[in-house]
């Protein structure tokens, strides 16, 4: 195939994707950064934006209400993400190891049930769980009662509301991460285990000395994806808690949308989005750095 001809096909085949992603993803990223330095109402054209330098960021890190609300949402978001990861990763390793072994019948069924939750719309998950958590007629408190545990306030208390949303998230995503872990496990050659077994290594030791180190790349990928997913939590907050009680479940996707769309403070909300993006980049870099440190050892 001649080069000139290939150039035409290259351009033609890439144009739809690059055009769409360019207009609807890349340009909006640049605009978010640009708008964060302006006072701008979302109800007006971009041309009406008024340059304010870093004043939006000053407000976010000031002691004003705007700043306190934002920092609470930022903190809630990363607490939610951290707790989700802390529960999801160990559980997905546990289920992954069990499903992977497949020495007992029924593992495929378990995998199907686990993964099915991933396909349920988040809005339905949020609605169902809000009823499950109901303090009086909800089945969760009822079931806890069987074990002598007193009823919990769940979504209605500042101390338990955010963790209640974490459980809901873990329930929905566990199957997805289990499948990723199983995929990672299948990449480990059985000969590694056979050699270790000859050396007399026992099960738990095998897990920590062989399985987990060899699974490190998969787990790194899982942590990053779980983090990005956690930042997108929106439906349960928007429909069930409205960020409450007293801001306890106010997370960034909800908060930025409230400020930027509902209140039309587009410049301020863009500054929040930029701060989120920077915080996310710092965290992801840290996760990678920690992993690399592990590699050197």
């Amino acid at each position, binding site marked *: 195939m001649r080069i000139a001809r290939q*150039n035409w096909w*290259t351009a033609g*085949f890439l144009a*739809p*994707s690059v055009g*769409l*992603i360019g*207009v*609807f*993803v*890349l*340009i*909006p*990223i640049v605009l978010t950064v640009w*708008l964060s330095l302006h006072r701008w109402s*979302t109800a007006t054209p*971009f041309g009406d934006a008024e340059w304010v330098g870093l004043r939006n960021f000053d407000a976010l890190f000031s002691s004003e209400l705007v700043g306190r609300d934002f920092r609470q949402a930022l903190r809630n978001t990363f607490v939610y993400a951290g707790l989700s990861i802390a529960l999801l990763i160990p559980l997905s390793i546990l289920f992954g190891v*069990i499903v992977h072994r497949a020495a*007992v019948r*029924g*593992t495929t069924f*378990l995998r*199907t*049930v*686990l*993964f*099915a*939750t991933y*396909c*349920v*719309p*988040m*809005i*339905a998950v949020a609605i*169902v769980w809000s*009823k499950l958590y109901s303090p009086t*007629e909800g*089945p969760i408190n*009822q079931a806890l009662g069987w074990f002598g545990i007193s009823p919990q306030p769940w979504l209605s208390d500042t101390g338990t509301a955010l963790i209640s949303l974490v459980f809901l998230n873990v329930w929905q995503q566990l*199957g997805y991460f289990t*499948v*990723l872990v*199983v*995929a*990672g496990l299948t990449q480990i050659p059985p000969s590694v285990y056979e050699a270790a077994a000859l050396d007399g290594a026992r099960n738990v030791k095998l897990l920590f000395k062989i399985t987990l180190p060899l699974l490190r790349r998969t787990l790194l990928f899982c942590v990053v994806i779980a983090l*990005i997913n956690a*930042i*997108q939590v*929106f*439906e349960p907050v928007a*429909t069930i808690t409205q960020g409450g009680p007293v801001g306890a479940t106010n997370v*960034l*996707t909800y908060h930025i*949308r409230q400020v930027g*769309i509902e209140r039309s403070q*587009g410049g301020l909300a863009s500054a929040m*989005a930029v701060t*989120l*993006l920077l915080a996310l980049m710092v965290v*992801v870099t840290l996760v990678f750095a920690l992993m690399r440190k592990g590699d050197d050892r």
Partner: protein
Amino acid sequence: MTRRISMSRRAALLSFMLIACVVTAFPILWMVATAFKTPDEALQTPPVWVPGSPTTDAFSAVGDVIDIPRSFLNSALIAGLTTAGILLTSLLAGYVFAKYRFRGKNALFALLIATMFLPPIVTLIPLFRIVTQLGWDASLVGVIVPNLANAFGIFLMRQFIAGVPDELIEAARLDGASELRIVFRIVAPNVLPAIAALAMFAFVYHWNSYLWPLTVLQGNEQASPIVISLARLLTYTGSAANTPQVMAGATLAVLPPLILFVILQRFFVNTISRAGMTG
């Protein structure tokens, strides 16, 4: 690992899996059970686990609050058209990234892939404004068009098309086939499982997606997909006595993606396994 497991450990493993299945399936089972309860049963403490006299009243009551056929049609349009767009754009771009050589290819690919890790909220506000400027706000066009291409689809297609033998493509070129023909007649049939998986991913994702339609549609009920109508159903039926009605609505909304998954889960699982590995 094929090692012998003792009977007692086998029993322990089985009971663990049984408990895991029950705990995982419980919220979905509770949703369906509650949809068939009477309002009285929904209010009882301790809760009624299985409806005494199952009734479909709650399902008919859903239609009093939201337009069910219209919502399903809107959801099908959003998920269907978006999926078709993603398949087409991803196949073409994936082919270029897998089989062509050109200057700046790796840089362009890296730029596109980076957008895969971008939380949508970061671009939501300017994107909403762009769609409004284009005159697409409060309409399905505004919901659909910005999602017709995405980095995940391109990445997935490139991974799988890279495995199609070059000889196959060269042979078709020697026969005088155009590149377009090669993509659809040679490449696509060879990566059919990946296409099926991408189609399901995209369909389920866009059937379920909430933030973007909520933002674009601004309460336009005529264009609301089922997920948005479901939120409205919840708002309009505050008291606990209406719980069966809300659960009936949720059951209806969950069915299409869940059925699709159960039928085609084999592709789903195999593909995230392979795509995940290279991530």
